């Protein structure tokens, strides 16, 4: 029974694939390329400005990230980021603005469930995994670096 269901499911998936209009993947990639590239250019613009004020690379890059994060938060609050995101696809997910959006959106949505277990907990819905696995990866890098140099 289970097998048969699986088979039917597979055939159905195949039918769906054939019936779908020609794969939009190329179009999606173009959109992601231009929107993602544009966000990086905004970052480059900010970077160049801060460079003229003589900031060192690390604090300059940090400031650029903070500004982009703030802008994305604001756009998310206004409800625009999800609209932009529908067009941009990965172009709005992969830049640091996408991280900011994924922190802000659940915070706003779950505010009604309270400031502690609503906003406070759900703010880490995506940030939590990113911080967890990023930290784990950094520890691995740190230990290997300690022994290998």
């Amino acid at each position: 029974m289970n097998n048969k269901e699986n088979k039917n499911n597979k055939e159905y998936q195949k039918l769906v694939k054939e019936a779908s209009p020609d794969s939009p993947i190329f179009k999606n990639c173009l959109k992601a390329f231009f929107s993602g590239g544009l966000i990086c250019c905004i970052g480059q613009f900010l970077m160049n400005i801060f460079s003229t004020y003589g900031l060192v690379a690390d604090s300059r890059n940090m400031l650029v990230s903070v500004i982009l994060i703030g802008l994305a938060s604001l756009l998310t609050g206004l409800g625009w980021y999800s609209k932009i995101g529908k067009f941009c696809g990965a172009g709005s997910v992969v830049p640091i603005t996408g991280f900011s959006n994924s922190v802000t959106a659940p915070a706003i949505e779950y505010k009604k469930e309270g400031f502690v277990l609503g906003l406070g907990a759900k703010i880490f819905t995506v940030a939590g995994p990113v911080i967890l696995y990023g930290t784990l990866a950094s520890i691995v890098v740190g230990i290997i670096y300690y022994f290998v140099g």
Partner: protein
Amino acid sequence: MDYIKAFVVGGGICVLGQILIDKTKLTSARILVLFVVLGCLLGGLGWYDKLVDFAGAGATVPLPGFGNLLAKGVKAEVDRYGFSGALTGGLKSASGGITAAIVFAFLAAVIFKPKEK
């Protein structure tokens, strides 16, 4: 010229993400995790910094750049404090980004109402 490099490299990294979304049905949360971890590992090998030197914001603004920051931080702390640096370096270097993200998110949540879908 630096704008062209930032545009092409940053756009290219986003195309990788788009291909993963379209081909593997990975959710965007998984893409975020994957890219940060990848950036951290590439940063550990010292490769990502070469991309940063070449593309500037095109490499630092996408999420692998955030992962690279973790790797750079952990290496600097190991250099300074030895083995314990492996525990403290990552979050230390990422603290600016994480703090900004949660503070702005909190402010936005206080100010804005959820949008009806």
